[in-house]
């Protein structure tokens, strides 16, 4: 077989594949004819042999080029792709269930998504509901155990929002941030309840004042303990000073350890990426999906379940206790609702102006003369005819 094909084969191969294929076919045909005479089973083997020897390489090369072109973009992409992703998760506005879900969901995603290597919390919130703040606290703590979690505070990172970011590995604050800290809770003053024929038990309309007072303090203690648990080593104030619940400027917060350094989201992202070992990374920003519309009162009277009356009502019901900084009080419960004093007792002669600083001894007078967000004075709720 080789003796027959040798004279004509070699010259053709070096010139043109197509031609050689054509010429090769008769040769193969002859061989096949002889093979058929010997045994039918040898036919295919002979054909394959002849194809492999000369042309398979060519075909393979073509296929390889095609395959290479197909795969190359992927390889190129893989080589040039970011090493990982830094997720920027927003914590904005009043903290309620929506905020907590947003943060918790995105942090869970960060933990389970292989590409996300670090998280930066972009914070501008004065707090909200304590339990929801605590929920975010737990999510941040959990996430921080597996990847760098940094927080960057703009104007507000106070009260419930501060609780939420306390477990972060590092807290950046704008030097001019106006409220960082405010470790405490606030609500309406404890008040007794009279007989109410509409309830099935004496405490259904609200527990007794002593219990209200103790529970409020318990919530405050939980808050304080959480902060000490997470940042006890960094914060240079003692427990009592923390419990004063002051809200610090950014530059003060860096000094007293409520924050770690001055900075903004950009710097936090870069540092978080570096901490995660990412030389090349992309940023995935997760904004709050449905921000609370401006002016919307979080806590309102809803049918029989009174939370805190909105501005249209003259009285405060037995309210929820909130982890809200004074600076954010207005946007949280509405401008018409103001804290009452601890005894709700007002002098007759200058009702409404006088005052006993209520929930916190810190004087927020700098906010402005008519700032309703201040929790201080025992002003009644819109309209004083009740008193």
């Amino acid at each position, binding site marked *: 077989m080789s003796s027959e094909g040798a004279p004509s084969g070699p010259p053709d191969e070096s010139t043109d594949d197509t031609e050689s294929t054509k010429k090769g076919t008769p040769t193969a045909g002859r061989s096949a004819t002889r093979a058929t005479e010997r045994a039918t089973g040898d036919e295919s083997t002979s054909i394959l042999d002849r194809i492999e020897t000369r042309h398979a390489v060519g075909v393979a090369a073509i296929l390889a080029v095609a395959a290479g072109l197909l795969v190359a973009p992927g390889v190129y992409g893989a080589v040039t792709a970011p090493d990982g992703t830094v997720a920027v998760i927003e914590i904005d506005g009043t903290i309620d269930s929506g905020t907590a879900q947003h943060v918790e969901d995105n942090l869970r995603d960060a*933990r*389970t998504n*292989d590409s996300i290597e670090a998280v930066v919390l972009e914070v501008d919130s004065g707090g909200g509901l304590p339990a929801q703040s605590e929920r975010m*606290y*737990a999510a941040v*703590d*959990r*996430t921080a*155990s*597996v*990847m760098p979690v940094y927080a960057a505070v703009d104007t507000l990172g106070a009260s419930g929002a501060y609780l939420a970011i306390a477990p972060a590995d590092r807290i950046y604050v704008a030097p001019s941030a106006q409220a960082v800290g405010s470790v405490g809770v606030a609500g*309406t*003053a404890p*008040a*007794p*309840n*009279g*007989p*109410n*024929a*509409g309830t099935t038990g004496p405490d259904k*309309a609200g527990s*007794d*004042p*002593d219990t209200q*007072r*103790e529970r*409020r*303090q*318990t919530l405050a*203690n*939980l808050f304080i*303990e*959480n902060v*000490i*648990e997470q940042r006890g080593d960094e914060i240079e104030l003692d427990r*009592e000073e923390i*419990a004063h619940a002051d809200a610090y400027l950014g530059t003060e917060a860096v000094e007293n350890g409520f924050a770690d350094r001055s900075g903004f989201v950009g710097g936090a992202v870069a540092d978080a990426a570096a901490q995660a070992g990412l030389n090349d990374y992309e940023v995935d920003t997760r904004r709050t999906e449905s921000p609370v519309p401006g002016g919307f009162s979080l806590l309102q009277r809803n049918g029989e379940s009174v939370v805190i009356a909105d501005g249209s*009502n003259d*009285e*405060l019901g037995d309210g929820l206790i909130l982890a809200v900084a004074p600076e954010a009080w207005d946007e949280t419960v509405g401008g018409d609702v103001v804290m*009452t*004093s*601890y*005894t*709700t*007792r*007002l*002098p*007759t*002669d200058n*009702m409404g102006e*006088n*005052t*006993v*600083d209520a929930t916190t*001894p810190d004087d927020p007078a700098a906010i402005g003369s008519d700032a309703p967000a201040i929790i201080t004075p025992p002003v*009644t709720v819109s309209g004083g005819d*009740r*008193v």
Partner: protein
Amino acid sequence: MSVDLRTTVGVFALVFLSIIGVAAVGGVVLDNAPPETDAVADDHWQLDSVEPETVSEGGAVEMESTESSNTVVVHLGSGTSGLGGGTSILPIEDSNAPAESDIGTLGGVQRGVAPLTAALVENGHEVRFYGGIATGERLPTMLSDADAFVTTSPGSLSATDADAVESFVDAGGRTLVTSDPGGAGALTDFGSPFGVYGEAGYVYDMENNDANYLSVIVEPTGTGSLTEGVERVVFRGAAPVGAANGSATLATAETSQLSTTRGAGSYDVAVRNGSLAVMGDSSFLEPENAGRADNGALIGNVADFLVTGENPDVSFGPPTGPGGAVPPGGAVPPNGTAPPGGAAPPNGTAPPPEPTDPPENATA
């Protein structure tokens, strides 16, 4: 052909299963489940570690005095303001939509001193509430028949009434004045003739308190009838008060701080000058607070203080003389009407110059 088919199927199955096998094994080997996260530390969430410390509960109000019936006039400020009594201004239910079956209310301002008044009446004494100048009976008239006087709102006394009380105190009428934070000016105005004043601000304590920084623990500064059997009292909102003779009876703990200065230290929150006792808090009289710590004992002592001693020898010009005869012939025509502002000429004449000698003059 049958061999080829078998071989072909076999190869297919082999390759297919190999791929699946590699995928499965690879998945198991390479699969990185969500990284193990550390559990959130929750030891500090246990109630034991965050429950606030509170004072003891269950104290009772008991009087020791065996005095025969005394009359105590109690003034609580404006009845509509929730003043003094410590009564919340919060309604039990919406006042605009009262419950269908109204079986009672929280109570008026009088409930704020109920433990004290109950103890007095229980021990055979008479309690009369004075509702302010707008009400029927005038304070001087009531005081002329009274043995003791209590006000939780000195600032809401009219000038005339304040003068009457001043005369009453001068005549030896036992008087209890409570002044809450915010009432420093009014207290000073009222108490300065007796060397008693109020200080601005409030006292708070972040360490020793009854579940709130405002609920300071107050202790006696020495021994005295007002503080007998009293070790710790809770004031829900303590206003610092002082006296010229330094006769403090109750003071806060060293850990307390004054709101205005933030200075830490012990602050006097109750003083006594003769027949006048001043306390920088009225909340201890409230029914909810009477059982806390030794508040009940203090209330009992206050009740004893009010009913123990000589009957004050006091009367007021106008009430004694019918018609308008007395004012002109009263002890002090020159400047008598000025302080009251002319609001009540008939009974406003006596007070100003009275501090020293009016009782005698008036009765003479």
